[in-house]
């Protein structure tokens, strides 16, 4: 295991940004950390990167406490849109500096990507637009080839095609040089296809940790008459429901037996697969009901 978090809590005044969270990130895996705004993604990642100290609980990276640890700093990189580079250095000079500090640095890749995304070698980091800044930081993160690479909402400000290119670059680079990569995002849609595992957090707590394959089978959608469905879902874990005048759509954790499913189908309930992005949205929805209830 590259990263082990045990009962991790981070408290800011009264608020628990991360609460009693236990999660592990496997060596050489590409994991998506998914959660809504304020779910605690950044707080968790900053503790893993050794930037902040947990209020209680324990985090170990490569078997060590990451806080103020030079070894961890040399083998971990944390990329987000808040990265600060000297306003007096050009992009070229920053990349050259990266080579001095990071032993696995891939200079060729760095400059190729710089060119591909049409960033000027002589531009200054401070004068880049928001999206270009994110693009440059992403290049920096990929080129560092750190054994633990963390991207915290890396695509902030990037336009659609750059985001697609980024995910593709990330995947290709990961396949060529397997390492532990964590990518956080508030939505799963665009990154689902490159991920191996998904860690879903909600209100600072772990919601679920599954492989992408398992997550696809995690839940089942039931469509039909509400009264009829209710008879089958007694005691089951209902993840979400949408009610219309004469039909209902339930998303339920899939622990039905094959017989049960057959009976349901025979009685006129339509069974559907639930897309993982939809599922994560339902799993992390704040409480019963949705935005519609606000307008009732």
């Amino acid at each position: 295991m590259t990263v082990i978090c045990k009962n991790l809590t981070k408290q800011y005044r009264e608020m628990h940004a991360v609460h009693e969270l236990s999660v592990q990130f496997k060596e050489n895996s590409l994991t998506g950390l998914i959660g809504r705004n304020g779910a605690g993604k950044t707080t968790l990642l900053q503790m893993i990167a050794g930037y902040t100290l947990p209020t209680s609980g324990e985090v170990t990276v490569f078997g060590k406490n990451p806080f103020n640890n030079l070894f961890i700093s040399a083998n971990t990189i944390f990329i987000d849109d808040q990265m600060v580079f000297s306003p007096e250095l050009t992009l070229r000079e920053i990349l050259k500096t990266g080579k001095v500090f990071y032993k696995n640095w891939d200079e060729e890749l760095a400059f190729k990507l710089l060119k591909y995304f049409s960033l000027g070698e002589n531009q200054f980091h401070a004068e880049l637009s928001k999206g270009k800044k994110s693009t440059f930081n992403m290049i920096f993160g990929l080129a560092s080839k750190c054994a633990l690479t963390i991207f915290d909402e890396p695509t902030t400000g990037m336009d659609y095609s750059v985001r697609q290119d980024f995910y593709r670059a990330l995947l290709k680079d990961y396949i060529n040089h397997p390492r532990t990569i964590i990518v956080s995002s508030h939505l799963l849609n665009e990154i689902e296809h490159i991920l191996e595992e998904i860690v879903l957090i909600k209100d600072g707590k772990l919601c679920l940790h599954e492989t992408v394959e398992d997550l696809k089978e995690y839940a089942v959608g039931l469509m039909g008459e509400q009264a009829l469905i209710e008879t089958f879902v007694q005691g089951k874990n209902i993840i979400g429901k949408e009610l219309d005048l004469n039909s209902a759509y339930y998303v339920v954790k899939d622990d039905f037996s094959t017989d049960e499913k057959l009976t349901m189908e025979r009685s006129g309930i339509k069974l559907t697969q639930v897309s993982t992005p939809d599922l994560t949205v339902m799993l992390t929805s704040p409480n019963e009901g949705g935005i519609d209830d606000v307008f009732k």
Partner: protein
Amino acid sequence: MMSLNKVSLTAVVKQQLLYKMKAYKSVYTTMILIQLIAFVFSIGGVGSSGGGSEFIFVNITYIGSDMIIIFTMMWAFIIATTITRKENQLMDVSFVTTPITSHLSNLMFIILMSLIGAASAILSGFLLKLLFIIFKGTDNIIVSHYAIGDILLGIGSLSVYLLLLSGVGYLVGALIQRFPILKMILPAIVIAALFFEGRESGVLTEMVTFFAQEKSLLLLTFKVVAAFLVCALLSIGVSTRMEVRR
């Protein structure tokens, strides 16, 4: 699996120092600018006195780098304070760092700057005198001769004073980072202290005398290095458990 790399503290400090010498270019340009301003102010002489009698009138103009030295001292204090700024700290975080390596490379950077600042200030004093000779001729000049040794002594003692000031400046900066409220309190304390010290000499005067009145360069160096180390340790001490805040 990408390899896990072991790094040594000294190697990282060295890399950071080299990086900072490039990344803090504005520190040199500020120095040059400040010394140029002081230089322009000093062209007419930094001090003059006159007197005479019925038949003779004497006007002595003192040409020297005093103003440049005072400006350089202020520069040393200010850059040491600003180097502790959060932005600079975050710049380190983008590369391999810990608070300890970051402090050590900062401190080495300000030691280096003290030397450069001193050399530049002392030598520009000679430029000033040279300009005077070129434009006014040598007829009216009373000059004691300078040997290389004197120049080196000048540079040496000025860099020691700059080191002292930048050490104190660094501590002030580190304290402000740790306890932001000091930003308001410290200037008040300093102004108040100046008022009190103006009436009767107190701790502040004694501290200044302790360093400023020292005649032996060796003893002075010893005192300043000790003071610098105390400032450095205190600065590291107040900030090692600090989190990276963005």
